[in-house]
């Protein structure tokens, strides 16, 4: 085998320019894929992180039917105190769960005493919420970040703060419809202004859950949803499946499930963008396969055509067809390896450069997001594996042709 590799390498070196150009093409393909995967992956992970860690959490549990009527923030579809207890017990026993937070979602009228507008609010327990969505405090553009929210305080979205000309420390009035149809109003102090982000709840204000219960005149500890944060995001599907099975087994008197559970993917429209990124990555990989296949096949067909006489000679002196085939397949393999090694090296250099130069980008209303592209060893191994496998595949047809060549015809070829 060592000798086959040696001869194959020398044959490649015989046509230096062609070998280098083909390797360069493969290198460019590998660099394109790895850089795209690292940048898009970084963007994807950053956005998913923003969405899950500052707003949604990884998983949410609601009462059955809540999600389909979420736009109207229905209080009559809240989880009862008893149901919340069941959920809490289930989550507390699960070692994959890092934290969870109960929320009441409500709509209210927001008044600065001269103007009134609508506001959507998430009422939270600040300690539990900080553990479940640790980046929420980072979205506070103005005002105190420590402790997130206190009693009698409200965090208002940036758009309302600007539109209603409300400043930190100002008093405002929230008027909300209660479950029984009555109306209640309370005065709150603006503690801070929240940066808006894309997705459901991205432009909601935040208040303390006890204040919400008072405003809505809720006596029990009912909530609209329970948001969950996992220890390891990679285990999302597994944890979701396990919880879904357990929650699904809890039924009402009619034998129907009480709860519904969703991952962030179902809750955030960004999931579709993430899917698009995954599809684009797949498309780029298919392009790489095409580049490698066409370039290797082209080079190897040329190599066989140019060396017909030589193939006849080695066949005549007794080289078995299998070894002739191995010789040409090895040439393709070496070309693939050469292109891949250069490609991976250049890509790693490129990624390091991007990290060092601190590239930033804007996404929607979020400005100056710092791009930190990374690439995992698994992704490199997959891309390298694809290239090398396609290089071998691309050289198979010419190699088989060489191995099947009639030595007499080959020796006569000029």
């Amino acid at each position, binding site marked *: 085998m060592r*000798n*086959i590799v040696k*001869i194959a390498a*020398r*044959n490649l*070196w*015989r046509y230096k320019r062609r070998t280098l150009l083909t390797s360069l093409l493969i290198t460019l393909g590998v660099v394109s894929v790895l850089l795209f995967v690292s940048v898009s992956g970084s963007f994807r992970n950053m956005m998913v992180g923003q969405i899950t860690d500052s707003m949604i959490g990884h998983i949410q549990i609601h009462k059955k039917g809540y999600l389909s009527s979420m736009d109207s923030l229905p209080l009559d579809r809240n989880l009862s105190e008893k149901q919340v207890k069941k959920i809490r017990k289930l989550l507390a026993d699960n070692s994959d769960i890092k934290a969870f937070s109960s929320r009441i979602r409500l709509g209210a009228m927001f008044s600065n005493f001269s103007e009134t507008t609508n506001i959507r609010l998430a009422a939270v327990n600040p300690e539990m919420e900080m553990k479940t969505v640790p980046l929420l405090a980072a979205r506070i553009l103005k005002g105190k970040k420590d402790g997130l929210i206190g009693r009698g305080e409200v965090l208002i979205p940036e758009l309302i703060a600007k539109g209603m000309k409300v400043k930190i420390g100002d008093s405002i009035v929230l008027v909300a419809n209660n479950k029984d149809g009555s109306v209640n109003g309370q005065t709150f102090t603006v503690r801070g202004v929240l940066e808006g982000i894309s997705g459901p709840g991205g432009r909601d204000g935040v208040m303390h859950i006890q204040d919400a219960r008072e405003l809505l005149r809720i006596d029990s500890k009912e909530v609209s949803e329970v948001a969950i944060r996992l220890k390891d995001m990679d285990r999302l599907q597994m944890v979701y499946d396990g919880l879904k099975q357990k929650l699904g087994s809890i039924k009402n008197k009619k034998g129907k499930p009480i709860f519904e559970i969703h991952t962030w993917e179902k809750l955030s429209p960004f999931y579709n963008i993430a899917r698009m990124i995954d599809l684009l990555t797949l498309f780029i990989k298919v392009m790489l396969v095409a580049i490698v296949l066409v370039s290797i096949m082209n080079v190897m067909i040329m190599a066989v055509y140019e060396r017909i*006489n*030589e193939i*006849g*000679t*080695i*066949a*005549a*002196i*007794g*080289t*078995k*067809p*299998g*070894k002739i085939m191995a010789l040409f397949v090895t040439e393709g393999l070496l070309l693939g390896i050469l292109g891949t090694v250069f490609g991976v090296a250049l890509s790693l250099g490129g990624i390091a450069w991007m990290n060092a130069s601190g590239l930033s980008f804007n996404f929607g209303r979020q400005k100056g997001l710092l791009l930190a592209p990374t690439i995992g060893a698994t992704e490199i191994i997959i891309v390298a594996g694809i290239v090398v496998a396609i290089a071998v595949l691309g050289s198979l047809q010419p190699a088989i042709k060489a191995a099947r060549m009639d*030595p*007499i015809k080959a*020796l006569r070829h000029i």
Partner: protein
Amino acid sequence: MTLVESRNITKVYQAGEVSVKAIKEVSFTIDEASFVAFVGPSGSGKSTLLNMIGCLDPPTSGTLRVAEQDISDMGRSRAADFRGKNIGFVFQDFNLIPVLSVFENVEYPLIMVQDWASDKRRKRVSELLEAVGVADQTDKYPRQISGGQKQRVAIARALVTNAPLVLADEPTANLDRKTAERIIDLMKKMRDEFGTTFIFSTHDPRVVKNAEIIFTLEDGRLIRQHTGEGGNHA
């Protein structure tokens, strides 16, 4: 002892709907350690016959035995195996592998065709290069040596596996007179030294002159077998 035995071999090529009989019921025997030439005009069937003896092309009919084996009907892989063990080839255009050095060209059959141990292989190649007179060219590549030297390397490559038979198709056609004579002398010396049978197809009267047995072909038929100046038996 007989090395090559042909009985009524015929070779028919199909060119579209036309059948061309290149060899017509040819019978002959060649003994071990012979120095034999096949002569005849172009198209007489010399190369076809050599290809058949070399197990590169099977006869359409008849029996052909080489080194005590019937080679009339062998598969590609078995034929390659047989050639690797029993037959060396010397070509008109030398056909050395350009990416391999002189040493590596001679070593090639011992690596890719047979599987000799490294030490034994190196010793054998060095012996052969010494014997053919190119021991001082071992590290050079085919493009760096003369035509005569290339043919010497080709002869060494043909002999390196201890094959009992070397087939040479017009081995002196691309060499000047002086070099051609030296190559013929070398082949004869190798025959004497290693007991290898050399069979040529040739137009070259210098080669014919040195042959011990001369087979004359015409229009695919063997029309004459006689002793050349190089031998003393018919």
